[in-house]
């Protein structure tokens, strides 16, 4: 079929597409191509939004999320809030290949990854530390809290819930999610 193979990915992450294409061109599977393509982006820290050293959380830690799906068998492997492991898509593949589960999260996912032979490494970099430090200097702005005290738009936490909220229709709040900060 002249229309195959095909790789398409979000954003102008060309090295990821090249890595995936290299697998397909050699007759490899779509699953291997996706794993290699996403792994390349994790290595390259694409856009700062993929891989180690980016998007620190409120504690300054970088954690990773990944998922892989086989459209033939409908098998899926996924990990989220993965700590200390750089190759998140590889761990997602391992969940699919070596467990009967679909989705592992948090510290337990990291322990699973270590047991599968993935190296445990610090995901913090000077860049992520700088991002975190600046955020602290800016009184923890922006953040994702609402209906808490102290006022999260002005102060750092710890926060406590505001009591006595009336039921209202959900309002989708403006968030600092953009081309440099996204899922």
């Amino acid at each position, binding site marked *: 079929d002249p229309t195959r193979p095909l790789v398409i990915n979000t954003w102008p992450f060309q090295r990821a597409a090249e890595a995936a294409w290299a697998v397909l061109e050699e007759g490899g599977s779509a699953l291997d191509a996706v794993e290699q393509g996403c792994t390349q982006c994790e290595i390259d820290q694409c856009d700062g939004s993929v891989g180690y050293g980016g998007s620190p959380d409120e504690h300054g830690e970088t954690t990773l999320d990944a998922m892989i799906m086989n459209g033939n068998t409908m098998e899926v492997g996924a990990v989220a809030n993965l700590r200390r492991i750089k190759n998140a898509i590889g761990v997602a593949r391992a969940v699919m290949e070596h467990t009967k589960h679909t989705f592992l999260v948090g510290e337990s996912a990291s322990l699973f990854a270590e047991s599968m032979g993935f190296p445990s490494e610090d995901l913090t970099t000077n860049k992520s530390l700088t991002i975190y430090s600046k955020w602290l200097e800016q009184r923890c702005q922006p953040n994702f809290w609402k209906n808490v005290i102290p006022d999260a738009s002005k102060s750092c936490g710890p926060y406590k819930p505001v009591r006595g909220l009336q039921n209202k229709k959900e309002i989708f709040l403006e968030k600092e999610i953009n*081309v440099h900060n996204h899922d």
Partner: protein
Amino acid sequence: TIGMVAIDKAGCVATGTSTNGATHKIPGRIGDSPIIGAGAYADSTVGGAAATGDGDTMMRFLPSYQAVEYMRMGADPTDACKKAILRIQKYVKNFFGAVICANTTGSYGAACSKTAGFTKFHFTVFKTGLKDPLEEVVDCL
């Protein structure tokens, strides 16, 4: 975040995502990327789709699953992506996000939701006949 759809020579479809999520997220928060049907979805009888953007919003609407289902119902990939975006916009007018779609006949497309500072979406394609990956761009809805 990267979301990827690959179709091999045998016509098998796979999808994947990888991300470090939103900056300054509350610890423990995850977005749409690892959620099946939200960050990506694949069905080798139809095609695949992957999403990117504001995961807290997008994960509520399963846009990748929705796009694949639109393709199953006969929509071409571009229309399927557009419909998935428009469906979210019915509830959240100015959300930030984009979806890429590809079907098993080799057609592909993308769509995005316009927000301040985001009016075009760039995505990458590698297909037969190309020596290098091709960067394509679509105007947001």
